[in-house]
């Protein structure tokens, strides 16, 4: 009974999160094999525009105005007030990002749009994490958490399933020893290397 329950949890969690697990491993593979896909600098377009903004000169108010007026879409990054008094706002999503710099006087904005190629888009999907930046990206962060937790769940449930499914465990124990031994040795090596 418990075996069937855990098997179903293992199976159903994998099905539910299949697209995310697949995305993380495919994009991760592209990241560790740097020459697999072409790595090109983004294509950039810059516009200098007059800013007809009469509202509060706060980060939140500026950000809302920029998004509505100029259609800047993506995960909102923390705004930066620069030493010269200008404000920098950034929006990121895999494949496209925007940087908007409002002048110190508040009367103009420079918007730079960057378009990435396939490799950098995949890397963008892989590296996008953290809560904040809008509801859509909080949903993404929840999916990221679920996929991460699922990897741990697959492993622990998989070990349970193997132990109950097979009568002879020697090979399994040897593989587990090899796996955890290599990981522990690698961590220990990096911690103790002078």
């Amino acid at each position, binding site marked *: 009974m418990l075996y069937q329950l855990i098997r179903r949890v293992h199976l159903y969690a994998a099905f539910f999160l299949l*697209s995310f697990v697949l995305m*993380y491993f495919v994009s991760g593979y592209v990241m560790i094999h740097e020459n697999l896909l072409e790595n090109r600098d983004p294509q950039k377009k810059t516009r200098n525009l007059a800013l007809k903004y009469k509202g509060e000169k706060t980060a939140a108010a500026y950000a809302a105005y920029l998004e509505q007026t100029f259609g800047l879409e993506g995960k909102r990054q923390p705004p930066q007030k620069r030493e010269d008094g200008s404000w920098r706002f950034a929006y990121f999503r895999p494949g*496209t990002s925007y940087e908007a710099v409002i002048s110190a006087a508040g009367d103009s904005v420079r918007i730079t749009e960057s378009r990435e190629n396939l490799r950098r888009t995949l890397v963008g999907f892989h590296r996008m994490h953290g809560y904040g930046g809008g509801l859509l990206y909080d949903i993404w962060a929840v999916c990221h958490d679920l996929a991460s937790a699922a*990897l*741990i769940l697959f492993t622990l449930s*998989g070990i349970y399933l*193997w132990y109950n499914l097979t009568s002879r465990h020697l090979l399994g124990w040897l593989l587990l020893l090899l*796996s955890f031994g290599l990981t522990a040795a690698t961590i220990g*090596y990096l911690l103790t290397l002078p």
Partner: protein
Amino acid sequence: MRPILLKIHLYAGLLCASYLILFGVSSLNFNHHFGQHAALKAERQRGLRALPAIADDQLLAEALRDTLGLVGWTLPWETARSETADSLYFQFGVSRPGKEYIIRVQSPKEVVPVADNDTLPPSRKFAPVPALAEPDHRIIVEQTYTGLWSVIGALHGFSGHMPRAGFLLRAWSIYTELCVWVVLFSIISGTYLWTAKTSERLVGFILLGAGAGGGLLLMLYIWLWG
């Protein structure tokens, strides 16, 4: 066919068990930052009789890193030169999972020997001029231990291509490659094994549609419209 696939699915999964746990834990840490990074510093000094005769700063940094027996990548943005009245300074950084180094090399400027005996004080007028010693280059290595969590985070997707990496890290790069393929295989084999269970087909299709399909739509939406 199914029994063989099931066995491969099981045992390949066991082989990758620790890697998947490390992946999962490090990913959760990227989102929630519950792992505390350490910043313990230590310093040591040594001397060198001669520096490698290399003009390029990056190549010189790599040569000194190798001479000092350090492992890791040199950091171009930490490389700098400066000088005072009597010394030349060369600084560079080295980074690897678990430690970061700033190395400062202090070299004396060339000493001009005194040639005119008349300028010596009377008490030393007939004393022999001692031979000049070969300049000593003083090297200060400041290391910062960044802790266990930085190692765990770095091993997430670490390709093993690190200068002077030992056998274990090269083995880790092979292990990484293997685990990626095992996960991809497990997705396919697991789906195939599921098709034998007619009682679970409806639930499986619903979860694939809602979960996997919904996830794909979410990715497309973010990519196209953000």
